[in-house]
């Protein structure tokens, strides 16, 4: 049955997440102004909070599915501050990759590690098929050589899931994911990037120089290159079907904070956001704000839709890209619009709105730009291969 109401258990969980998130918000400016300083796993004020995970117990069939729920929880975290994402244990993008592409044994073995995901290389932006990093099997070890940039949580993570090709000639089909633990000889964390936003995040550049890892670190264990051309690559792409919506959710949580702040500030000067009236009876500010709210709702629903399909084991490649593309553009317009509405006050660092404006701008860039997502969507609806539509 089509439904959009949260159950009591859903609410309980979201409220707990938001309570923690609100504590983190108190530190948001600090971690913005002290770039690359890591937030603690637990903030003092939150020490005595009951573990959110305990609330997962006793959820039933009548409650919202876990995939959809995870999107709401992710947004709930970043609604407080993006830095919440930087805690250990919460898992990085690599953990999602491990869950999606790893064998059960691999998932078990590395379940306690926070894993980063390393795809982009200096030469290739959003073009994973152009991966230059190589993996050569030498006895019982893979030897990795290459460079990676824009690795989210690259310094903080305990390990990384990295894309490398075992056969350049095979193109996409030759690309495999490998897990490399920190401390492995030949695995060097080169430097951190100074960024527009998400400064609590650490975005690193890696260098792999004759880095040897166990043969068993090939995720999925499939060492051969599938006949059907891009099959192997699609396997890799599967990784993204929950990651793309999650990345959108990260941005949307921040966008919601911006909307809440703007609504509160307007109330201070007696401007209430009222619904029901048409354009003819609205002020410019109210109409603009409601357009931004609609963008938020629309984008969040595309995220939940992609997760819902995944919860029901339905293909969601198109919908995952729709969520990422829509979220990526929505958060830009929302934060730009909130500042437009609030005017000069909106760009003052006395408030967090200007930070949220900077933080969300990454959404449409990392894990596949909006252009890449549109390529994926267009191929799906047109029935074109990646060779037919570039």
């Amino acid at each position, binding site marked *: 049955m089509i*439904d959009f109401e949260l159950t009591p258990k859903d609410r309980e969980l979201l409220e707990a997440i938001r309570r923690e998130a609100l504590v983190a918000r108190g530190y948001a400016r600090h971690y913005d102004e002290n770039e690359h300083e890591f937030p603690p796993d637990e903030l003092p004020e939150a020490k005595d909070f009951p573990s959110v995970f305990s609330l997962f117990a006793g959820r039933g069939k009548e409650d919202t599915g876990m995939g959809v729920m995870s999107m709401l929880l992710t947004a709930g975290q970043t609604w407080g501050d993006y830095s919440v994402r930087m805690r250990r244990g919460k898992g990085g993008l690599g953990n999602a990759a491990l869950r999606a592409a790893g064998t059960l044994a691999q998932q078990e073995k590395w379940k306690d590690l926070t894993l980063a995901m390393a795809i982009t290389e200096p030469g290739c932006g959003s073009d994973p098929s152009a991966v230059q990093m190589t993996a050569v099997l030498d006895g019982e070890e893979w030897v990795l050589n290459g460079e990676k940039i824009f690795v989210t949580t690259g310094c903080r993570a305990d390990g990384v899931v990295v894309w490398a090709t075992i056969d350049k000639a095979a193109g996409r089909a030759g690309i495999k994911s490998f897990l490399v633990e920190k401390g492995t000889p030949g695995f060097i964390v080169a430097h951190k990037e100074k960024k527009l936003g998400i400064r609590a995040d650490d975005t690193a550049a890696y260098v792999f120089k004759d880095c040897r890892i166990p043969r068993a670190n090939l995720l999925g264990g499939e060492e051969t290159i599938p006949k059907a051309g891009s099959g192997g690559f699609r396997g890799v792409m599967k990784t993204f079907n929950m990651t793309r919506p999650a990345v959108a959710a990260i941005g949307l949580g921040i966008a919601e904070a911006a909307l809440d702040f703007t609504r509160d500030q307007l109330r201070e000067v007696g401007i209430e956001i009222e619904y029901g009236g*048409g354009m003819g009876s609205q002020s410019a500010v109210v109409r603009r704000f409601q357009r931004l709210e609609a963008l938020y709702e*629309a984008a969040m629903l595309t995220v939940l839709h992609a997760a819902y399909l995944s919860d029901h084991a339905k293909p969601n490649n198109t919908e995952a890209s*729709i969520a990422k593309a829509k979220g990526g553009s929505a958060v830009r317009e929302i934060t730009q619009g909130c500042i437009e509405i609030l005017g000069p006050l909106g760009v003052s660092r006395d408030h967090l709105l200007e930070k949220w404006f900077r933080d969300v701008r990454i959404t449409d860039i990392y894990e596949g730009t909006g252009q890449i997502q549109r390529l994926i969507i*267009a191929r799906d609806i047109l029935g*074109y291969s990646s060779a037919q539509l570039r």
Partner: protein
Amino acid sequence: MISFGPTEEQSVAREAMREFATRAMRPIARECDETASVPEKFLQSVWELGLTATQIPEAYGGAGEARSPVTNALVLEELAYGDVSLALAALTPSLFANVILDLGSEEQKQAYLPLFGGERFHAASLAMIEPSPAFDVLSTRTAAEPKGEGFVLSGRKSFVPLGDRASHFLVVARGGAGFGFDALDAFIVPRDAQGLTIAEPEKNLGLRALTTVGLVLDRVELPAAARLGGERGIDARRLVNASRAALAIALTGLARAVSEYCIPYAKDRVAFGEAIAKKQAIAFGLADMRIETDAMRHLAWKAASQLEHGLDATKSAQLARDYAAEECMKIADNGVQVLGGHGYIREHPVEMWYRNARTLGVLEGTVTL
């Protein structure tokens, strides 16, 4: 529980409507637009699908299935996908019946719902819009003054669907004093009421197959029983929200029609040596059509679901309708651009959809869930 999954029954209904839209609506849409008319035969064929009667309780002569705005939303998207003008014409009886169902008093249900239990298509309509610039339902001028036990209605209405044949009109009017929704009421006005003048069919930019008329109410005297909801009156929000949610999903169906027409066209059409679909400017535009059509549907579903739960859908319905109006306009506009010169001539439906998108996007109270 958040869920995007229709029930078994809903999926079946949706499939049936999709088939009907392709078989019975698409082939006649262009001619109905050019001749600005809807064939009786078509109205009768939809009537036989039982769209209006199904959700009317058996006690009032209906089929007694559960009242479901969500199911109606699924149906409306498909009909609008077929042709939105014909869809609105076919659903005009529901525009009257569903409002009576949701907001009418027991007496009113008994008096009017049986009208829709018969074999033949029966038209009754809603009159909300008024012919004033930048009209907004909150600026409704049609007034209902108390007189004795009853009321006297005066004012002008426009865009009343099937007003040429409707047996009754639900007329939205300013009852109480003050501004806002609380001052709004609705009154059941029979076609032959003293002082009611039904004008000639209007000529509009789009939705041409849907006959609409203007009404002039010159001190129309009504009994107390004519006030929708009886003594307590109505919450006009409910009326407006259901209409907006319906418009949002109708616009979704229209947008999907454009999008699905452009995809094969762009793959067939060759320019500069390759299919135009292979140009990023075109391909990304088609991707955006899909993205926004999905977004429009999600927003409309959320509003419909809140209506079904009996929750206040004022916010969700407004956001859904305003968003859909804007995005559907962009999609129809881009549809014309994708076809280029062929998008400007009447050999293809996109120019009609362009007119329909702009027209539907500014109307309220012409369809409901």
